[in-house]
């Protein structure tokens, strides 16, 4: 069943006027994005910096104001809720951030950090909360005697475990993970990714998982949406996307990801390196946003924006495959 359904979500940021009295230009960060997150499943959103992946997720959970669209969470449109109603919904949707150094209060003991959401939401009695915090510490692989320590006494990987425990405290159904391992060392990344995969299975959690790293997404997600300049250009079950990427941009991303199979000693030559940078989101081109960098682009691509088409494996391209 669908836990969250996002429909035609748009986010715009007004830019400074170029001169007095001129109309304010608008940066279209998210341009009509739709996706579903099913109960207990993980949807990965991948894309490069500036593609709008974080803004999409933040708008979906109302940490960023949306210009228009609909976000149905268990049938309720989150965008229509008032502040108090939204607050009550927050226990179902929790968040872990990229940087475990700046997302934990440096002056609070980590046990209190994990406990705080329970106190705020008034979950259970005082002793029940204490037991829940101890239980959470065990779940994320930390020791009970570490509860009295401060964040600076932990390594990056352990801090990310604390963030995860804090996010799990209110018993959420959806966890939004914004680049949860990109600030960590490679060896530690694997520990956190395996932990997230285990928690998903144990607790039946759904993830909205934002990452720039296709390899990371492959290991955690069930479904993947690829974003480019504020739009989803391809969406497919994870195995399908990696085996049969249809959009030239997805293909370029896969070709660019370093891989152990490509050896300098065997004369590895990259088939296709993308030229140039993405177009500006303040003046998106009329046709396909990727046309200027696309090796297959034809006249139609520059004039007509392709729609996201297909069942199961969707692609927004005039010449997929």
């Amino acid at each position, binding site marked *: 069943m669908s836990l969250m359904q996002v429909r035609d979500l748009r986010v715009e940021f007004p830019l400074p006027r170029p001169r007095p009295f001129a109309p304010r230009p608008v940066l279209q960060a998210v341009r009509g994005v739709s996706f579903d997150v099913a109960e207990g499943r993980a949807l990965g959103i991948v894309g490069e910096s500036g593609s709008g992946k974080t803004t999409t997720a933040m708008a979906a959970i109302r940490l960023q104001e949306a210009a228009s669209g609909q976000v149905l969470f268990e049938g309720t449109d989150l965008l229509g809720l008032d502040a108090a109603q939204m607050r009550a919904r927050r226990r179902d949707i929790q968040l872990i951030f990229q940087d475990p150094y700046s997302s934990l209060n440096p002056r609070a003991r980590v046990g209190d950090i994990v406990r705080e959401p329970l106190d705020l939401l008034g979950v259970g009695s005082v002793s029940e909360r204490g037991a829940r915090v101890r239980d959470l510490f065990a779940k994320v692989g930390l020791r009970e005697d570490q509860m009295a320590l401060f964040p600076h006494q932990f*390594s990056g990987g352990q801090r990310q475990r604390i963030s995860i425990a804090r996010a799990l405290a209110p018993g959420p159904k959806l966890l939004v993970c914004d680049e949860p391992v990109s600030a960590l060392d490679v060896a530690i*990344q694997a520990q956190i990714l395996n932990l997230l995969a285990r928690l998903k299975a144990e607790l039946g959690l759904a993830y909205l998982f934002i990452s*720039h790293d296709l390899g990371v997404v*492959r290991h955690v997600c069930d479904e993947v949406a690829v974003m480019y300049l504020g739009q989803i250009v391809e969406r497919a079950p994870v195995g399908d996307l990696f085996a049969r990427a249809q959009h030239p941009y997805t293909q370029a*991303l896969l070709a660019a*990801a370093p891989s*152990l199979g*490509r050896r300098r*000693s065997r004369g590895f030559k990259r088939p296709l390196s993308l030229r140039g*940078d993405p177009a500006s989101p303040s003046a998106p081109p009329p046709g396909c946003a990727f046309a200027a960098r696309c090796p297959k682009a034809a006249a139609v691509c520059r004039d007509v924006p392709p729609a996201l088409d297909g069942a199961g494996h969707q692609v927004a391209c005039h010449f997929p495959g």
Partner: protein
Amino acid sequence: MSLLQIDQLRVTFQTRHGAVTALDGVSLSLNAGETLAVVGESGCGKSITALSVMGLISSPPGRIAGGAVRLAGEDLTHASEARLRAVRGAEVAMIFQEPMTSLNPVLTVGDQIAEAILLHQDMTRSEAWTQAVALLDRVGIPSAAARAKDYPHQLSGGMRQRVMIAMAVSCRPKVLIADEPTTALDVTVQAQIFDLLNEMQRDFGVAIMLITHDMGAVSEMADRVAVMYAGRVIESGAADDVLDAARHPYTRGLIGCIPSVDHGGALAEIPGVVPPLHLLGAGCAFAERCAHVREGCRLARPELQGGAHSVACFGAQEGWV
């Protein structure tokens, strides 16, 4: 003889925990025209190795306590500051992880490249400027003559790294040290920078020391690999040998824990974290995290042995790992 030969290099730092040994007898060699990858997690000594080659260890608190760095036979650890200034840029150049902080924000990029040229070559200002523009064109910056007048903040991250590379190759160095050159960049831009580095190597014959934590990058770029852990080289050899038949448990862990685009499923984990340098005991620094550890591993430190594909592990040397 190797172009760059690091022999038993020892670097210590004065810290509040007393003197710690950041590099403990590191030996590496780089031959003309090849790429050597130096791999490891944060804090293993990769960057300190690079900085010692450039004579950039700040003293105090740092000190080169032993060993030698020989560039074409000349020991740079005993070179005068004037001699080092002549070497830096002209014979050994370096590019860094974050191109924004390594460029001067108040000078145009053309001026910065021209400055490097003027320092090392006998040329007029306008000749140096012409050459700077030619270099920017050479590293793939479109309309180079106009971009040369831009300030760093007007360029994208990938463009800035191209500027750094143009500056680094401006005096035709023999050795280029690239310290995590793509960590701050998107994956498609990373691919462009890797391709560019390879092109520069082909055209200018420069030997590259690539410092990275990414085994995928090693596979695509390196002829040879040195894996570092806690200030020592623990395995080194030809890239194919190390990637296909890693001998040290740490190297195997590093290869197994990369989230790859080639397959899904659970990742191999290296438990724990790199120990703080001031807490290193007499035994193998990896013993606490090693699945194969035996009593002897905690008593004495294994030395790097074994010719072309060498390893510092008792188990690998005695055949029980």
